[in-house]
């Protein structure tokens, strides 16, 4: 066979057609029109707030010089002002200091709960996501069973068995979260298991194990931090509820839920102890949700 000049077919542009026509290809207009141009402001604010939260949980004394546990009785129930930014509680403790110091408990228990739930969820979800009907059925029913217990009640049951405290509450919330995480991981595994590029890898001659290690597992795992961020907010929400019920850290720990529970006794005379810790919870949950949703959208856009 006579080898043609190497580039002959690359430049096979018709003689009477302008050069740009041959390579003409633009995305469909629907891809560019009306696409939601999200306001980035929310995302930036959330990022800054989460950075503050992390700083406050590592080094809370950077933000306040008050002791969160010891107060001055004579300074009890002072309204917010220059001396005490968020006012003081019944025992004269600075509410701002307590809120700042409380960050670490919410974040720690929240992340701990997600870690427990996601850890178990990853293992179970990947097992269920394989092409084994019996395993899938068994694990899926396990998820059904676990999720039929309302999260708060299941966590309460576990705390009844294990006793109150920070670690136990993280475990309880984590176990209650297993079906949620497990199902997400299972769906993600199935999606990738059936993806064309996994079929393609079989055509290369990779063994099933190689395909799993090289293509399936990494693509499941890249989604994990995103799943964690999406769910950290709702986990913190449940944790604060359980603390409010007195099942988590005990007074005088400056945990936000505990602080709000304590505030109920003084609500008639002082609004501030009942407002600021709640504001902290809500803002934290919003910030994590905004970041999580943003990551998820970007991730899904990448897959699409």
């Amino acid at each position: 066979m006579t080898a043609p000049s190497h580039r002959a077919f690359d430049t096979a542009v018709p003689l009477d057609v302008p050069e740009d026509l041959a390579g003409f290809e633009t995305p469909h207009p629907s891809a560019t029109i009306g696409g939601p141009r999200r306001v980035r402001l929310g995302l930036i604010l959330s990022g800054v707030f989460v950075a503050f939260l992390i700083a406050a949980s590592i080094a809370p004394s950077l933000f306040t010089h008050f002791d969160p546990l010891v107060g001055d009785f004579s300074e009890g129930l002072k309204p917010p002002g220059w001396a005490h930014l968020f006012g003081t509680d019944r025992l004269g403790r600075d509410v701002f200091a307590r809120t700042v110091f409380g960050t670490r408990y919410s974040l720690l228990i929240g992340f701990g709960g997600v870690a427990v739930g996601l850890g178990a969820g990853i293992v179970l979800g990947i097992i269920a996501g394989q092409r084994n009907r019996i395993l899938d059925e068994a694990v899926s029913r396990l998820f059904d069973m676990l999720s039929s217990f309302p999260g708060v009640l299941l966590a309460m049951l576990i705390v009844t068995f294990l006793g109150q405290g920070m670690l136990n509450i993280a475990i309880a919330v984590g176990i209650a979260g297993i079906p949620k995480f497990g199902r997400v991981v299972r769906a993600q595994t199935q999606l990738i298991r059936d993806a064309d590029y996994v079929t393609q890898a079989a055509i290369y001659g990779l063994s099933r194990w190689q395909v799993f290690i090289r293509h399936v597992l990494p693509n499941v795992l890249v989604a994990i931090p995103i799943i964690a961020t999406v769910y950290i907010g709702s986990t913190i929400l449940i944790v604060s509820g359980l603390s409010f019920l007195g099942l988590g850290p005990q007074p005088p720990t400056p945990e936000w839920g505990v602080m709000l529970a304590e505030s109920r006794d003084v609500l008639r005379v002082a609004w501030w102890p009942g407002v600021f810790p709640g504001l902290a919870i809500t803002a934290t949950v919003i910030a994590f949700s905004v970041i999580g949703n943003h990551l998820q959208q970007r991730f899904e856009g990448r897959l699409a």
Partner: protein
Amino acid sequence: MSSVWSQKDRVAPIVEVRGLSIGFAGANGGKPIVTDFDLTVSPGECVALVGESGSGKSITARSLLNLAGEGARTAAHPFEIMGRDARSFGEADWRKLRGTVTGLVMQDALVSLDPLRTIGQEVAEVISSHRILTDPGAIRDRTLETLGKVGIPNPADRALQYAHQLSGGLRQRALIASAIAADPDLIIADEPTTSLDVTVQAQVLQVLAERIREGAGLLLISHDLAVVAGIADRVIVMRNGRVVDSGPTRDVLTHPRHPYTRQLIAAVPSGQSRGSRLASARFEPGAVDTTALAIVREPLPQRQAAGAVVLEVEGIAKSFTAPKAVGRTKSVVLQDISFDVRAGEVVGIVGESGSGKSTCAKIVLGLLPPDEGEVRLLGEPWSSVAEAGRRRLRRKLQYIPQDALSSFDPRYRVKDIVAENLPGSGSRGARRERIVSLLDLVGLNADYLDRLPRSLSGGQRQRVSIARALAAEPSIIVCDEPVSALDICIQAQVLDLLAELQSRLGTALLFISHDLGVIEHLCDRVLVFQNGRIVEQGATEDVLGRPQHAYTKSLLASVPDIQRGLRADVAAA
């Protein structure tokens, strides 16, 4: 013929638009997406709007319904619909117009009809919401009458069914019925036959042609000049939101003024383009006459003669059993399929959807075991051995899928995609050199090494996919509709690339396509699949030139063709 209409009788046009421009706030840098567009459609006339994806043809058509999309800004002078100035219309005026004056038929009825409502409910909606009829019995009668009009048998039974329960052709007819139930003056059909098999496409076009004969105007939007050749009185060719060519169908198709239109016509693969480069096509100056297009193409390099048998498929059969819930019905997908492919040969498989061609590809690729029969690769058992036994031969059999993007691991860059299929180890530098030379082979340079496939265009992705297949130095490549998702000009380039590489490297190709033109352009031999069987096979010229089987004949007759379309037009006149 109908084009005489507009000239002879001077009927008042349904739509008259001059200098139409459409833009979106914040999109396309504030510039309009469509500019300077003129359109007149009269009763009994068909105007075709032709262009590739992104040409703005759909948005233009939808602007006639004020449905171009959220935030669309439309300007034109004049913009008249049924003699009324549409620029002064409010949303309520437009709503009154929709369905009664203008009816819209979109692509793929499966998603264009509400899947949770019956065909009958969908067709009746336009009648009841405009209060054309209020009596439920009368609405029902009109619904059934309309379903009958578009050729749906047993309308009373079909009206109670949902879109997913109907075949593709019936579904599309139901969608047309829902658009014409209130007898609109203008039917806007946006790629109404694009997802359909050719035989069904011909029938659906007939239904639309019938509407024109009844006096409706038709604005037909298509990416395919051949589809519109037989039905349109006038053609408007759009590109990048501008009209590049327009006029009576015959003039545009035989004397295309704009180079883009010429390429659109010349890049269509067919029997005449065999052995030549599609993208190199041009018109011979002065050789253009009114009856035939004189297209000159550069030849492809000399082909190698067919060598030893690479792939043998012997009597394979496959059937699937539906789950118990559906009653364990057994559907036969493939039956008694035998053929072989020799080195250096291009064998085509052509068939409509559901003919079993993709299942056949899966069996050949060793992704699905056949129920009966055997596949042998390079003289060794293939389908009958376990996957571990096949692995050694895997690189000899490669695959180019239709959707290249989804076949790439989203984390991988171009170099990783190609590298994964490179045999042996070799030094890092040597491998990199090999990847660069493979990319070079498919017309991409080293700049593409670190690109993510998402950032590539469709044609470039398919090139990477070809480079990946070639990296394994295969004896045979299975290509499953590799150019079906591409626009015609890109399709021409990719086909040229495949043909070029095939003749240089002598790799055998098993080429699956629904498009007879592509098969005719590229393949030495062809297998015609119908309902899981091979109804006819042989050399491409014989099978497609002198078809023996009735199915092949009907398939060939249904393929839209510019020449035939124009001839039919002449005959009708």
